[in-house]
């Protein structure tokens, strides 16, 4: 592999994963700056080992594990300082529940990433609801939207998060969803009972 394609691959990998890895590392370190630094160390490690690694999506779990280890190293180094109380439970490196914990933190990192990719308005509505705890009515007033639109945007945000995290039906499926509803409608009209039985479970997946 030539150096150029390797740097290009590293660049693609970096842009794909750096944001969520920083969010992930920040859960351990509670320091934006250190989190970014740790992630950069991880990618430098990837570069130095590029002969033995495949610089693509398959590196995902490697990246998360490496970032976690790097973050724990950082915590170790500053052990004289107080470790944030709510980060303590993240610090065990082995034992029961660690795998689940890692999984949960990875999910949060993906949520961070997906929310940052939401359309502006949708993200705004989601954050006012989740981070600021505003009711739909309050959000509607604040942004001069109808409550219906707010509900709609919240649903879009959650559909996308769900598609990204669980691979379920997300907003990308809205079109096929609409088509299925049409089909369902048609089948009901024509009294095609079997059709309803087949289509119905799929529609709300």
């Amino acid at each position, binding site marked *: 592999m*030539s*150096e*150029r394609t390797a*740097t*290009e691959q*590293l*660049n*693609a990998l*970096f*842009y*794909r994963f*750096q*944001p969520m890895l*920083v*969010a992930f590392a*920040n*859960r351990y370190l509670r320091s*934006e700056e250190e*989190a*970014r630094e740790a*992630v*950069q160390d991880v*990618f*430098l490690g990837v*570069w*130095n*080992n*590029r*002969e033995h690694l495949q610089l693509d999506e398959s590196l995902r779990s490697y990246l998360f594990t490496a970032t976690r280890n790097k973050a724990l190293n950082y915590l170790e180094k500053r052990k004289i300082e107080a470790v944030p109380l709510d980060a303590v439970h993240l610090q065990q490196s082995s034992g029961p529940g660690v795998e689940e914990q890692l999984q*949960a933190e990875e*999910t*949060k990192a993906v*949520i*961070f990433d997906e*929310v*940052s990719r939401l359309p502006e308005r949708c993200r705004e509505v989601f*954050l006012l*609801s*989740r*981070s600021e*705890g505003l*009711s*739909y009515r309050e959000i509607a007033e604040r942004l001069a939207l109808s409550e219906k639109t*707010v*509900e*709609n945007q*919240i*649903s879009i*945000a*959650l*559909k996308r*998060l*769900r598609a990204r*995290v*669980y691979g*379920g039906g997300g907003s990308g499926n809205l079109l096929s969803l609409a088509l299925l509803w049409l089909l369902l409608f048609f089948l009901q009209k024509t009294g095609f009972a079997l059709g309803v039985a087949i289509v*119905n*479970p799929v529609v*709300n*997946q």
Partner: protein
Amino acid sequence: MENNYNDIEAIIIKSLERQASAREEQVLQDWLRQGDKYQHHYEEVRALWEAARDVDFNLDPDTDREWESLAAKLPAAALTGRGKVLRFQNWRFAAAAIVLAGLLGLITFYFTRPGGPAIAQEFSTPLGERKEIQLADGTLVALNAESRLQVLEGFDGKERRLRLEGEGYFQVSTDAGRPFIIETEGARVQVTGTAFNLNAYQENTSVRLTVTEGSVRFSAPKEEIAQPVTAGNAAEMDRASGKIRSIPFDQRATAWQKGVLVFANTPWPEVVSSLERHYAVEISDETELQDKRYSAVFDNQPLEETLKVMQATLGFEAERKDGRLLLK
């Protein structure tokens, strides 16, 4: 009864936050009763909502800047991590490899024409004219006078490749998965989505890049490591040596789109070429200003006015002769 469950997620969350009305709770219960799948769906939304509470959405990963600082460390790293050297175990392998290489060469010969990939589309501008183009991916290009932009075969595929002679201002549609690459004589620019000006006229000794949005990777055509140039920065590459150096960012680098002619410490021969292009005249330069540099801004001035101003400071004479402009 007609119930549209399109916004069921919003109702689930309202219910989790204990803000749902009795009627909404009823809708949710009806929806859940449809089966296990719906229970499962509910659980996923609940888990996501809970997990999102712990997420710091104000965090700034600062990806562009972080990449730059990482990229700056790569050349050194590349030196320490040497590439693998292929060694042939015996002559049979070597012979097979040579035959294979020959075959590949033949295939390459048949599938690529001399001079690289085929040209799918070409845009060009004559002297004194500018053009705005929208490419298939939505990218907007303003092409300055006497320039040529070639869209290479496969632009709609994995890589968006173009070739530029002259000058263009690019507003590139974002598509991280499909790098946008412009090749020019002596330099190469790669981006995903951003806006920048690229001045690559053949007669200039350097290629100049001015970035107004996002980040651009600038390199010699065969260079391994690209230099990142971010918004508000400019760089030039010396065509002969391939060296890149940063130059002061000048907002006016893109002013040509509005018919503004900008000279900022510009070498005289380049000034003359610009005049030729901008005013669509042929110029015979017999002045002794070859080593001089010139700075001035001409906002949509007719040629006569521009010349008058230049003559006043540089002290040359201009006359029309056989449809050409003679400077002496």
